C-alpha cells in the first residue's frame, strides 16, 4: 500500500513548510534512527519505535517495536489496528502523526506540537466539582457571616442600644431578631410579653432577677419571714450543692428565687404548678431546723403529711377558736341542736314532711343534703344554712292566721319575737264555727260569752319557747334568763382548714355521704369532716403512679401568703 508522507514544519517566523514524499512499500517503520521510513528526531522516541503493517480490509496495524508503547488517539497502547478511512492520530514524543486515506494512498501527516500542551492541568481541574461550584471557603465564610450577623450581632447590638422602658404588654419589642433566641413559648399569663424579651431579660448575662418579677407582681408576699425561711431550708445534698455552685458561677440567683419554682418558656398554655419536691426540700424535715414550728413535716401527700387540723369552737363563749388535729376527734360547739340522722332517716318524720311538701316546693321523696346546704356561686364551698330558706318549710314560726294571712315570729330578733308573742293574745280569735252565732248573752259581746279554744295565747307560747320542745329551744341554746328569748350565737364556719383549700366543685361527682358521715350523726357537735385517710383513697403524692389522682402540694396549698380568696391556689382563686 503506498504511503504519502507529508511533513509540516514551521519556520522561525511561523510560516508553514509542507514537504511531501511518496513511498511505495507495504510496511513503514517509525523511530529516531535515520534508517526509519519516518524519522523523528526526538529523544523521547525510541530508535525503532513503531512498525506499521498492512492489515485485512485496507487497515493498518501499528505495533510497538521496542519496549515502549505509543499513544493512539490519546490512549497508551502497544498494538492497535487503525482504519485510515476513519482516521487516527499517533503521538510519539512531541510529534503527532495523522493517518488518513487520500487518492487510494495512506497519507501520514507529521507535525511537531508547537510546545508541550499548555492548559492541560487546567483542563484536568474541569473534572472536579470545584470547576462549577463556588469554593467551600467562600460558602463557609458567607454562611458564617450571615448567621453571626442575623442571630448574634443584630440582637446584641439592638439590646444594648435600646431605649429604657417599663414592661408593657402593649408595646412592641425593641430588640431585633431576638425571637430567634426564644427557647419556647411563654405561658398564657405572660403571652403578651412574647416579643418583649427585654422586659424580663433586662441585663445581658444576668439571669432573671426577683426584682424583675416583682415589678409587675407587686403584692406577692414572702412565703415566711426571714431569717426563719432561710433557717428552714433543708441542707443541700452534695450533688445539689455542686449544682448550685455551678449555677452561682454562672450568675444564677437562688436558691429561693422566683425562677427556681416558676420556670418559663415551657410552652404555651397554663404555667405548670410548682413541683412537690420544691416544698418538700424544706417541709420534709422542717422540725429538725425550726424546732418551735407548729407545722408537721410534709413531703408527700400519700406518704408523709400530717393529719388535717381544723379551727373551731369546742365550747360556748370561747374567746378564740381552737386549732385541733382531726386525730384527736374534736367535737365542735356551734350553738345549735341538730341531729343529721333524724333528718336523713328514710322512714322518719322529716322524710314524710319532705314528701308531703313535694316537688312543687323543691323536695323529692326524701330529704336531701342539697335541700338545706346550698353551694357558693363558685361551687368551692357552701353557704351557711339559712332559717328562712332551709329550715322554715318544716320548722314553721307561724303563730296566727288573720283572714287567710299567716303571722309568724320574726327570726333572728329576740325582742321583736317577744313583742309579737306578747301581742298574740289580744287579737280576736277566729270563730270555731262560721256562719252561726250563739244566742243572747252567750253570743259575742254577751255576758256569758266564753272562749272554748286551747290556752294558745302568746304568753303561753312565750313561757315554753326556750324549753327543749319549745319554739326556739328546739334548735337553739338559751342565753338569757327566764322569760328571755336570747339564744347563744350560732357559728357555721365556712372553712375549717385554714392552710389547705378544698374545692367541692371538683368533687361534685362524688356523693356527699362518701366523705361526710351525716346519716350516722345524732348531734350537731359531731364534726362531719373526713380525715386524711379518706382523701388518700384517691389522692396520693405527685409521683404516686398507682394513685387515682397524683396530687402535688400546689393542688391544695398556696406558697405566697395573701388574704382572702387570693390566698387560694390559683386553680381555686381563679373562680
Amino acid at each position, binding site marked *: 500500500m503506498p504511503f504519502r508522507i507529508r511533513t509540516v514544519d514551521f519556520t522561525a517566523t511561523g510560516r508553514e513548510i509542507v514537504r511531501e514524499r511518496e513511498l511505495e512499500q507495504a510496511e513503514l517503520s517509525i523511530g529516531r534512527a535515520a534508517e526509519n521510513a519516518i524519522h523523528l528526531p526526538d529523544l523521547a522516541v525510541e530508535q525503532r519505535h513503531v512498525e506499521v503493517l498492512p492489515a485485512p480490509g485496507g487497515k493498518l496495524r501499528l505495533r510497538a517495536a521496542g519496549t515502549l508503547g505509543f499513544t493512539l488517539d*490519546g490512549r*497508551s497502547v502497544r498494538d492497535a489496528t487503525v482504519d485510515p478511512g*476513519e*482516521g487516527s492520530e499517533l503521538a510519539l514524543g512531541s510529534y503527532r502523526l495523522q493517518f488518513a486515506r487520500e487518492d487510494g494512498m495512506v497519507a501520514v501527516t507529521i507535525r511537531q506540537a508547537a510546545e508541550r500542551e499548555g492548559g492541560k492541568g487546567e483542563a484536568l481541574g*474541569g*473534572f472536579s*466539582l470545584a470547576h*462549577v461550584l463556588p469554593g467551600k471557603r467562600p460558602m*463557609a465564610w458567607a454562611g458564617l457571616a450571615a*448567621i453571626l450577623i442575623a442571630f448574634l450581632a443584630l440582637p446584641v447590638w439592638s439590646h444594648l442600644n435600646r431605649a429604657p422602658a417599663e414592661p408593657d404588654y402593649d408595646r412592641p419589642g425593641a430588640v431585633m431578631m431576638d425571637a430567634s433566641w426564644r427557647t419556647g413559648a411563654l405561658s398564657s399569663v405572660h403571652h403578651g410579653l412574647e416579643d418583649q424579651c427585654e422586659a424580663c431579660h433586662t441585663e445581658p448575662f444576668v439571669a432573671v432577677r426577683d426584682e424583675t418579677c416583682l415589678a409587675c407582681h407587686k403584692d406577692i408576699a414572702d412565703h415566711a419571714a426571714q431569717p426563719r425561711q432561710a433557717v428552714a431550708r433543708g441542707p443541700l445534698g452534695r450533688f445539689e450543692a455542686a449544682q448550685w455552685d455551678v449555677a452561682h458561677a454562672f450568675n444564677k440567683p437562688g436558691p429561693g428565687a422566683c425562677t427556681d419554682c416558676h420556670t418559663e418558656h415551657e410552652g404555651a398554655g397554663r404555667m405548670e404548678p410548682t413541683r412537690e419536691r420544691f416544698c418538700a426540700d424544706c417541709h420534709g424535715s422542717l422540725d429538725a431546723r425550726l424546732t418551735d414550728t407548729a407545722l408537721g413535716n410534709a413531703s408527700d401527700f400519700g406518704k408523709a403529711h400530717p393529719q388535717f387540723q381544723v379551727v373551731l369552737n369546742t365550747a360556748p363563749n370561747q374567746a378564740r377558736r381552737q386549732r385541733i388535729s382531726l386525730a384527736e376527734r374534736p367535737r365542735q360547739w356551734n350553738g345549735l341542736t341538730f341531729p343529721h340522722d333524724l333528718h336523713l332517716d328514710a322512714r322518719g318524720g322529716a322524710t314524710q314532711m319532705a314528701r308531703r311538701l313535694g316537688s312543687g316546693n323543691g323536695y323529692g321523696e326524701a330529704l336531701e343534703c342539697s335541700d338545706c346546704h346550698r353551694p357558693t356561686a363558685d361551687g368551692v364551698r357552701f353557704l351557711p344554712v339559712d332559717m328562712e330558706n332551709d329550715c322554715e318549710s318544716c320548722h314553721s314560726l307561724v303563730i296566727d292566721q288573720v283572714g287567710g294571712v299567716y303571722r309568724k315570729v320574726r327570726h333572728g330578733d329576740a325582742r321583736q319575737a317577744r313583742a309579737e308573742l306578747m301581742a298574740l293574745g289580744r287579737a280576736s280569735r277566729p270563730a270555731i264555727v262560721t256562719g252561726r252565732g250563739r244566742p243572747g248573752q252567750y253570743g259575742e259581746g254577751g255576758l256569758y260569752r266564753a272562749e272554748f279554744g286551747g290556752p294558745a295565747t302568746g304568753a303561753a307560747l312565750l313561757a315554753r319557747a326556750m324549753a327543749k320542745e319549745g319554739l326556739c329551744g328546739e334548735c337553739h341554746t338559751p342565753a338569757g334568763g327566764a322569760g328571755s328569748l336570747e339564744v347563744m350565737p350560732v357559728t357555721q364556719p365556712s372553712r375549717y382548714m385554714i392552710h389547705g383549700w378544698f374545692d367541692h366543685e371538683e368533687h361534685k361527682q362524688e356523693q356527699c355521704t362518701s366523705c361526710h358521715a351525716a346519716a350516722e350523726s345524732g348531734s350537731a357537735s359531731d364534726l362531719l369532716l373526713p380525715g386524711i385517710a379518706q382523701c388518700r383513697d384517691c389522692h396520693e403524692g405527685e409521683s404516686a403512679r398507682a394513685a387515682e389522682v397524683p396530687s402535688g402540694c400546689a393542688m391544695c396549698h398556696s406558697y405566697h401568703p395573701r388574704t382572702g380568696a387570693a390566698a387560694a391556689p390559683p386553680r381555686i382563686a381563679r373562680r
Partner: protein
Amino acid sequence: MAAVPEQELGFHERRRDSDHESFLAHKRMRWLKVALALSLAAILGYAFADVEPRPNGGTWYGYTLGTIGAGLIVWLALLGVRKRAMTAGRWSLKAWTSAHVYLGLALIVVATLHTGFQFGWNVHTLAYALMMLVIASGVYGISVYATLPQALSDNRREMTKGQMVDALAAIDRQLEASAQPLGRVDADLVIAALEQDPFGHGFVARLAGRYRGCRTQAALAALESGGTEPEHERVVTLLRKRDAQLAQIRRHMRLKALLEIWLYVHVPVTVMLLAALTAHIVSVFYYW
C-alpha cells in the same frame, strides 16, 4: 506501562498492602464501642436523671449533654486542621478519622437528648438542624466512598483524566482536518461542537448526567443523514468518536460530582454550624 502514572501505581500498591485497615474498622472498631457507650450512657442518663420540670436543654442534665455536644462538635470540626498533618501511631490520622466518624454519629444521640425533643423556629433548632445536615452529609460521604470508586475505576478503562482530555484533543484535531471539505452549514456545526467546552456545563447537568445543550450530539444528529461521500462519513465517524469520548468524560464527572458533593455540604455547613452554635450558646447566656 510508562503511561500509567505513579499515583495510580501507588494506589494499587496500597490496596495490596496486607496492613491496610479501613478507618471504620480501626483497632477492631474501638471508636464504635466508645460511641455506643457514650450514646447508651446519654440515653440512660436521660431516662433516669431527676430534672425539673421536664427534660430540656435548660436542666442540669441538659447543660451536661450540651457541654459534651459542643465539645464534640468543636473537636470533630478540628479534623479539618488535623488532617493536614498526617502522623502514625496512637493518635494517628486514621485513629482520629475513625473517632471522627463514630463520635459524630454518637452526637445524634447526645444532641437530640440535649434538645429534650423541643424544637422551634429559632437559632437553637437551627444549630441542631445544621448539625444533623453535617452528620447526614458525612454518612452520605462514607457510603459513596464505599461504592463509587469501583464505578469510577470501571469507567476509566485504564485511562487517566489527562488521557481522556488528550484523546478528545486528538479527535478534535482530526475533526478539524477532516471537516475541511464540508460546506458552510456543516462546517459551522463542527465548529460549534469543537468550540464547546466539555467542562462548561453546569452543576445540575454534571450531577444528573444529562446534557441537553450538547453540540456534538446536535452536529451528529444533523450530519448523520446529510450525505454518503467518504469525507462526510469520516466526519460523522469522528463525531461519533467524540461523542463516545465525551460520554466517558461525563460519566467520570458525574461520579466525581457524586463523590465530591458531600464535602460541599459537610465543610461549609460545619462552619455555619460553628457560627450557629456560638449564637446558640451566647444567646442562652445573654438572655440568661
